[in-house]
């Protein structure tokens, strides 16, 4: 249940599917959608990492209860 690695893998799998389908939606041409995918995936992962960092910082400062 608390397996961090498995949670990260689930996040990566779901993120890949979400970004891939959003690329299909954005670009009607297959080649253009394929070119868009790595850049968009990287941006999504970096954005998520920033949100994670902010949440952890808040958890250990403002929201800490111990």
């Amino acid at each position, binding site marked *: 249940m608390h397996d961090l690695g498995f949670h990260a893998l689930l996040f990566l799998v*779901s993120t890949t*599917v979400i970004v891939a389908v959003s690329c299909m939606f954005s670009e009607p041409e297959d080649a253009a959608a394929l070119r868009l995918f790595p850049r968009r995936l990287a941006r999504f992962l970096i954005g998520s990492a920033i949100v994670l960092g902010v949440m952890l910082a808040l958890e250990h400062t403002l929201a800490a209860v111990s």
Partner: protein
Amino acid sequence: MTPTLPQRTGDPTVATLLTWLVPGAGHLYLKQTRIALAAFVLLEGLYVLGVLLSQGMFLEILPAEMRGRFAAALTPEAGNLGALLLHVRQYGFGGLEPRPWPAHMDLGMALTATSGLLNLLLASHAHLLARTPAAGPSTPQRPSPAAAAALTWVLPGLGHLAQGRRARGLVALALVVGLFALATFLAEGSNLDRERHFYYWAGQFLLGPAALAVEFAHGHPTLTSLPDYKDAGVVLGSIAGMLNVLLMLDVYGYGETKWFQRPEPAPAPTA
């Protein structure tokens, strides 16, 4: 001099709203009588059959704290608004005493939900027809954009295949159905039950008959303990359904572009 645009068949907003209220009404407004009658009989028939099988009890699933005024607005049934309003008016949240679910409760709810979703696709078809010149589309398409979207609902990627976009269709099928399969595996099938996850079920329902087939094959398991990853399964299953909406919009948009595209003029003959 500005070229004269071909006249539309009708007002797209009116056609869409009429269909939303009564299946087929938008097509009747557009003088597509045969489609209107067939849609009315099929979609209202599905809804009525669903209500009969479920004894109109689908909102009785909701716990007391979730029985708000707009509780029914986030259900697939809201796609057939007129039928849903009558349904809620007639049955509401049930009486004070809880009743046992009828034997075919799940099938009944699947039918009412299907009626709602198909009516939304019908409304998109009415909207498209209303924008189409009376002489017909620039490039007639088979399947029509709305039919391609319906095929995508039937099976993710099928609409792409019907449009000749084979690679995209197969990738879409593998990704979305794969995510749904992973979700169901993680939740050990507990994600498939509308009685257990009323609104998440609606998200998964967007994956279409594939999700319903798994639900009925799995048989709504009685759980003796909660699976470790039940929450991840419910959320990922719902995401898979919502991603299928993006795929439906993709095929609709692609088909729509072709539908209104004017054919390129033939090159001038060379001397």
